[in-house]
């Protein structure tokens, strides 16, 4: 079992407590076949697991005044219960998958940004436990010949699901390697037939202040919006993602459906997607609206263009002690560099 915390993680290893998930035996023969999953989305809707709070009933800690509730949770339950999804089998392979060591599931689910659920990296796992992701549908509109809405069942079956093991680089200079599950977004685009006028694609996340009360402190406006140029959206790396680590997406990582754009900074990969709109001109994007000087529309991973407040030359891969150099387009230059030929990437950051 990989504990994967690098040498800073002194002493006693942790037990990876993810029900039914066995990272060592995942690649069985079935996954190499191209079989369509015959599950409906309802079959694979996540079940609720242990609520950690029940362990805290009756817990009294001396000097608790100094320690926040969140710290107590971590102190008592260092192995952290995960909100695991349901298994997805029959995954095809993807030619762009990396063979690099995958980041432990526990890290990907307990260290990430999903500002609707709070701004601390450990907030999404804690605050998204009760997030309702069923029923769910994604509406596709704008400059298309066949506007329509897709149910989760339709999205799951729209194209054969692939395991796509991609590097994911956050704008904050940390990175992970995740075995996503999904297919090229272009499969969906072909179904709705964009018109001649469609030049960009705008995406919108779900937002419900009742289910996401911590969102009000995030300092950015919701619903979260993102965008791509149409040719970027049609690139085979652009992934419509419904799962990871052989299972449906956990709530905190953008359930039930999200985008994955491995050559762009993480915030471009919008989570909990509800609306896709084909448009004529560059759509507004959340972080650009919040701070245009720091976050551009393109936000391609680029070690040569620093964030105004920190260097982007290096990154810390979770689980590693030393920093590693960041790669141009996060190492996906062969697939995407041609999209930006002739563009000044300092200007279009």
């Amino acid at each position, binding site marked *: 079992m990989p504990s994967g915390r690098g040498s*800073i993680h002194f*002493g*006693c290893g942790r037990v990876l407590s993810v029900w039914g998930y066995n990272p060592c035996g995942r690649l069985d023969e079935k996954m190499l076949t191209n079989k369509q999953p015959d599950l409906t989305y309802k079959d694979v809707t996540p079940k609720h697991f242990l609520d950690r709070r029940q362990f805290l009933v009756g817990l009294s800690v001396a000097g608790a005044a100094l320690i926040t509730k969140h710290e107590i949770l*971590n102190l008592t339950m260092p192995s952290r219960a995960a909100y695991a999804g349901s298994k997805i089998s029959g995954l095809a392979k993807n030619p762009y998958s990396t063979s690099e060591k995958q980041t432990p599931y526990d890290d990907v689910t*307990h260290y990430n940004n999903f500002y609707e659920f709070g701004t601390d990296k450990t907030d999404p796992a804690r605050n998204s436990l009760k997030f309702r992701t069923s029923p769910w549908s994604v509406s596709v509109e704008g400059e298309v010949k066949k506007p329509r809405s897709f149910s989760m069942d339709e999205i799951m079956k729209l194209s054969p699901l692939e395991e796509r093991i991609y590097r994911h680089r956050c704008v904050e200079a940390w990175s992970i390697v995740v075995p996503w599950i999904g297919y090229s977004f272009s499969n969906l685009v072909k179904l709705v037939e964009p018109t001649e006028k469609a030049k960009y694609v705008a995406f919108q996340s779900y937002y419900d202040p009742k289910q996401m009360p911590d969102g009000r402190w995030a*300092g950015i406006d919701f619903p979260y919006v993102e965008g791509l140029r149409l040719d970027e959206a049609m690139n085979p790396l652009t992934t419509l993602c419904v799962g990871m680590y052989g299972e449906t997406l956990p709530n905190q990582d953008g359930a039930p459906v999200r985008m994955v754009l491995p050559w762009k900074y993480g915030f471009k990969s919008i989570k909990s997607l509800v609306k896709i709109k084909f448009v004529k001109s560059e759509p507004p994007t959340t972080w650009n609206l919040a701070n245009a000087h720091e976050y551009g529309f393109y936000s391609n991973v680029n070690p040569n263009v620093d964030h105004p*407040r920190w*260097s982007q030359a290096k990154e*810390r891969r*979770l689980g590693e002690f030393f920093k590693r150099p960041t790669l141009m387009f996060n190492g996906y230059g062969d697939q995407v560099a041609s999209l930006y030929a002739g563009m000044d990437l300092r200007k279009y950051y």
Partner: protein
Amino acid sequence: MQAFLRNKWLKVCVFIACLVPLALLLWRGFTGGLGANPVEFITHATGDWTIRFLVITLAITPLRQMFGIPDLIRFRRMLGLFAFFYGCLHFTTYIWLDKFFNFPEMWKDVAKRPFITMGFSAFVLMIPLALTSTAGWIRRLGGRRWLMLHRLIYVSAICAVIHYYWLVKSDERKPLFYGGCVVVLLLWRIGRWLKQRRTPVRAAVPMNIEVAEKG
């Protein structure tokens, strides 16, 4: 109350309490409780405790005067030194675990990134205060000059808050909270200064008392 505050064991207790954050951090380190990004966790924890101890230290004088508990002065130097102690840990985390002693890169950071410049200033300003925190140095400098020098803590606290404010991405609650604390504690001092200016005739007091009273 007075007997309690003057109890020599209380000072030992406060000293131990000030080490609890470090102990918790080490305990998490040995039990795998530092999360997915341990270096970031350590950086944030030591930074948080530096600014907290700065605020606590700045609160001593107002608390003494507002609530008439002059004996709190016994703890001020220790608390200030703990601010410096956690500041040292924070700075060490940065140069070791973040920059791996790559001094040219570090120097570029300090010059180019305003939030690093601010944090670095806050830390450097604490050094002379820590060095001259002994009774010997108070004597050598003379009470008035020593007091002037130690007003640098105001600047250091302001720099620390700006460092925090410039560092967050969008959720500004925590830096604004500490900023609010520092502003209130400094406004109180300005208020006191204005009041003292209106009553210029003051009884001469022995040096050591003055140090204790003015802070």
